């Protein structure tokens, strides 16, 4: 396959999938963490933590 260069996966692309995708398990047998709280991870909190700690943890920072 002539696929794009495999540079390191950008964190945002990963979070799109890991926090909004994947099977969500609900029910008493789990610790019931996955269903509600993760979806609501406050991206604003993440963003402000990125801004606070410039240089940012993302590879392609300036």
């Amino acid at each position, binding site marked *: 396959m002539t696929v794009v260069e495999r540079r390191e996966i950008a964190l945002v692309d990963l979070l*799109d999938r890991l926090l909004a995708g994947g*099977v969500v398990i609900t029910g008493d047998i789990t*610790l019931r*963490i996955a269903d509600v709280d993760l979806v609501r991870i406050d991206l604003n909190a993440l963003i402000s933590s*990125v801004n606070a700690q410039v240089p940012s943890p993302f590879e392609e920072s300036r």
Partner: protein
Amino acid sequence: MTGLRYVYAVCRPFGTPLQAQLTGVGGDPPRLLPHHGLVAVVSHVPEADFAEEPLRAHLEDLDWLTAVARAHQGVIDALTTVTTPLPLRLGTVFRDDSGVRTMMEAREESFLRTLDRLAGRVEWGVKVYLEPEPEPEAVAVPERKPMSGRDYLRQRRTRTKTHEELWQRAETFATRLHETLSARAEDSRLHAPQNPALSGASGRNVLNAAYLVPRTESEEFVEMVDRTKDGVPGIRVELTGPWAAYSFAGEETASSGEGP
């Protein structure tokens, strides 16, 4: 009790062993936990970090989240080389092995159905950006005398109009591209446009979509995306993947072909 169980994915049993040096979340190598016709891939994680309260606190910590996300992806990636995994949402934690087995038992049918639907498929991510506008006025000659109010307003109108046209063009482009790719893919999902503060990408993200494509048709799909790349000035197309089918792991696949 020896910690909690972090579950990455559920798969059908596969013959090939996982890479020996593979480490998962918290540095614990992923282990296979078979139950009936399924295998869960799990790591043992400390309660101090992964019980409900500490986990919630940790998730606000970008460095911590990054490490877990990368480790999770690393395991899923390794699994895709030997099987088609059904990824679980990040942070799915059980008290013990028996909790994991109970969950597999309860959801066996739906897991098997979804695994059938995803077998041999991968996910491709396609993003469309409207490039930041070049600002020709900004490089104006320094010795030019201050412009009149009327000139200023005219310039501003022109700029706004240009911006709207660009925006419109990007929207049209993204809609058409999404239609074309959806027709080619088995399923599609629209993710929220990415925030530039988080992505660090230049330009404005107008389309952030995922497409489910049979592995065997991936080459054509990628070529199709590649052909659009140089299409329109001011618009950038980015392709990511192949991913495990994260965006298509949910049971309800109500729609394929909703517009952006």
